[in-house]
């Protein structure tokens, strides 16, 4: 397959693919190399001058990001010369950088802070007037720009040129007056990635802005349920709630990026209006109810289930095993939204685990098509109990509401929801909380048939009682 070469990095033997990027090879082998402008998902700019290395037999130091791995290379970045160079270059980076750390959201995960601890010149000789640029600019799509904090690594401009090809950002002027500038405003659906790739606090997310300091957060690595792509993501959270979603590099699915819609999937999880306990409809107002009463009310009745497409394979399997084999079951699929595929990551099919659901239905000998759903809806009688599993992410509420109007015939209407109580849910007699995607372990199957893992993080609502638990109530 690919040819491997051996090279020496700071005296340590490392192995890399021949002709691959030297800096990436070093990083992959766990070596520490300071860098700002290099990003594996973007072209090489070579402007931050932090990843300088010395190679035996090459007279001048050169940036590792612009070099390729060759057999027998002997490279060092721990020589006094390189250390001094990195120290000096970092000093230049910090020269006109404002002392904003206390108010900067990037603090704690900032490239400048990290490298300053290692390569900083602790005595500042800068007593001159700094170059001031415009702060706190809202450049659209939930992105805030602080031009002063920018170190002009050009990652963001390369992102809009190479990944989204929308050309909204540019670097105007030259010299130390050079400044990131937006043409009108950001328009692409991947703008939040700019916040991720910005190594400093120049681009910050308006959504996350000032909500938490990053050192209070811990991350749970899971999969985005925003559409059928199933990008690898991490959700930053602490006991007070979930705060943001960021992409995790995954070669097979999403590479380095994720779309802006996917960034919103955490919102219902720690929302203050999320349904916490079983509730009963009292003239349009939901009040906490005793589970036992509900159980009594549904016991032994003929049940009809409408499942959502955002459950895990394991949940489907358990449901069909314990409950579904005897009951009538149909699948509510979310309507298409936008183009089938936008060419980068986003897909119009918003059903996170449609493949998994279809598979489970087939295995249980049930029909998962919309026609079956219509059939079930038409057959609802006044003595039936209808369980509706509310989809986790509802892009089109109206479409879901239409479904709800069709179940009114049933005497007992129960919603199983992992999220907030919507106004349209007044149609239900009871609301029962189920775990959200962030509170359960399991697999989902994405558009290409790949199994993607959901991992549980901290919990903000129901964690154990899933659809099978409530479904079992009808079986005595």
């Amino acid at each position, binding site marked *: 397959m690919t040819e491997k070469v051996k090279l020496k990095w700071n005296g340590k033997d490392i192995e890399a693919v021949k002709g691959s990027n030297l800096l990436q090879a070093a990083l992959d082998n766990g070596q520490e190399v300071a860098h700002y402008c290099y990003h594996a998902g973007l072209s090489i700019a070579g402007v931050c001058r932090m990843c300088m290395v010395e190679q035996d037999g090459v007279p001048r130091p050169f940036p590792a990001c612009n070099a390729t791995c060759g057999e027998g290379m002997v490279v060092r970045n721990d020589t006094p010369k390189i250390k001094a160079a990195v120290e000096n270059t970092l000093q230049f980076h910090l020269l006109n950088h404002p002392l904003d750390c206390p108010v900067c959201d990037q603090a704690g995960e900032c490239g400048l802070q990290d490298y300053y601890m290692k390569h900083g010149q602790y005595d500042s000789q800068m007593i001159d007037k700094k170059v001031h640029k415009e702060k706190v600019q809202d450049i659209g799509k939930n992105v805030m720009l602080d031009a002063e904090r920018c170190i002009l690594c050009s990652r963001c401009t390369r992102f809009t040129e190479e990944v989204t090809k929308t050309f909204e950002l540019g670097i105007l002027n*030259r010299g130390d007056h050079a400044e990131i500038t937006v043409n009108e405003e950001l328009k692409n659906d991947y703008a939040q990635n700019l916040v991720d790739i910005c190594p400093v606090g120049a681009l910050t997310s308006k959504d996350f802005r000032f909500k938490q300091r990053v050192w209070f957060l811990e991350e749970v690595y899971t999969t985005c349920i925003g559409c059928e792509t199933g990008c690898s993501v991490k959700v930053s959270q602490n006991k007070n709630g979930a705060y943001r979603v960021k992409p995790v590099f995954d070669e097979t699915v999403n590479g380095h990026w994720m779309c802006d819609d996917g960034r919103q999937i955490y919102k219902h999880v720690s929302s203050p209006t999320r349904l916490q306990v079983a509730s009963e409809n009292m003239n349009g107002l939901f009040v906490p109810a005793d589970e036992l009463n509900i159980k009594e009310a549904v016991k032994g009745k003929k049940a009809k289930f409408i499942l959502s497409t955002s459950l895990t394979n394991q949940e489907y399997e358990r449901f069909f095993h314990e409950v579904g084999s005897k009951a009538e079951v149909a699948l509510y699929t979310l309507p298409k939204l936008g183009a089938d595929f936008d060419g980068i990551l986003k897909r119009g099919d918003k059903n996170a685990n449609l493949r998994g659901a279809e598979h489970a239905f087939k295995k249980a000998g049930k029909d998962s098509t919309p026609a079956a759903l219509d059939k079930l809806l038409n057959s609802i009688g006044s003595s039936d109990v209808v369980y509706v599993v509310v989809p986790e992410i509802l892009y089109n509420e109206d479409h879901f509401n239409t479904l709800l109007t069709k179940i009114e015939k049933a005497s007992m209407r129960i919603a199983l929801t992992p999220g907030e109580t919507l106004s349209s849910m007044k149609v239900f007699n009871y609301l029962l909380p189920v775990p959200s995607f962030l509170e359960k372990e399991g697999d989902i199957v994405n558009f290409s048939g790949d199994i993607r893992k959901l991992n549980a993080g901290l919990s903000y609502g129901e964690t154990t009682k899933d659809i099978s638990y409530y479904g079992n109530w009808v079986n005595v």
Partner: protein
Amino acid sequence: MEKDTANYKDFSLLSYHHIPGVHNIEVFERAGGYEMMKKCFGMEPDFIKEEVKASGLRGRGGAGFPTGVKWGFFSKDRSAQKYLLCNADESEPGTFKDRYLVEKNPHILIEGMIISAWALGTQKGYIYIRGEFYQQAMILEKALKEAYAKGYLGKNILGKGFDFDLYVHRGAGAYICGEETGMISSLEGKKGQPKLKPPFPAIKGYRGLPTMVNNVESLAAVPWIMRFGAAEYKKWGTEKSAGTKLFSISGDVNKPGVIEVPLGTSLKEIIEVHCGGMRNGNKLKAVVPGGSSAPVFNHDESYVVKMDYEDVAAKGSMLGSGAIIILDETRNIGDLMKWTLEFYHHESCGQCTPCREGTGWLESVFKRRDSGKASKSDIDLLDKTAASMRGQTICALADAAAMPAQGMIKSFRSELEAYIMTPTHTGKR
């Protein structure tokens, strides 16, 4: 007009300059112009390349890299799409030789480019001339039109089955576009920011295709070399610095201007013989020997240095573009430093951090006297900062800013100390 061989052999580049109206193709051809081009089409391209290599011609733009060797790196595939670029973005402070050459005799450059294009097998060429040289660009446009009319440019030149199109491309006022990859970026319609090397332009240049970039003076020397032979060219100059060179001389001399002398001519001779001595008979104080990027020579060094690549380098400076700025005893080195630092601050392209921030900081440290914050140790800080900028960037602009600063600190430290400690009218001190 009779050909005066002796006169031609005294000069290579300025050999036609005494002829009135030589910018006109008719006059130029009567004097023997384009003859060599016609002959060259009968020669093997490799022979021309070898001859240029043998002549020891070195790039006249500033770096002094042997032109023949550079040509050797170029793609040998004659059918592949390639470009020849002439660097006429003469922006190094103190330099005006290319302007002079183009103004007086644009055809010698065009002839040189056609021969080079034949040797290198390029199908298209551009003369990148700086935006300020509007009239010079017009002169070139007119000359090109004449050459096209004669069939020396265009498709199937002189029936040899060789195509070469040549155009003038005007810059728009950015020093950095004189750097070859910066020029290529600029030609591509982008900001003139230098590109990472490798790959070098000879492999991947303009539009990702092999591109050869040569200075005006280098290309204009080619016809002469082909006419009289490499051996004849080598008779001038020193062993490693062959041939003649144009020097742009300005400052405190009686006759500033462009002169052509063999490399290795002493600076003393240049000042006293070619430039008519110092203005008002003042004593010489310092000389910038190769454009503002070159470290200055003090009085003593100036009188012993020979103007060739090696000797100037041995004395701690560089020949660069051959721009000699002469300062007499009435001048203050502090002013020179201030102007130089301001220039590089203004011209840094803003790509690499050490240069973008460093050039600005050098200027503000040097100007601390304006805010009353200066101290003598600032000179050490300047020296240290300049040193830390060197060799850290994509192109040589950071070095070009750091070298003269370090040079002036080395040679004129006490004067600079006195300068930065002198309060200005805006200072509080």
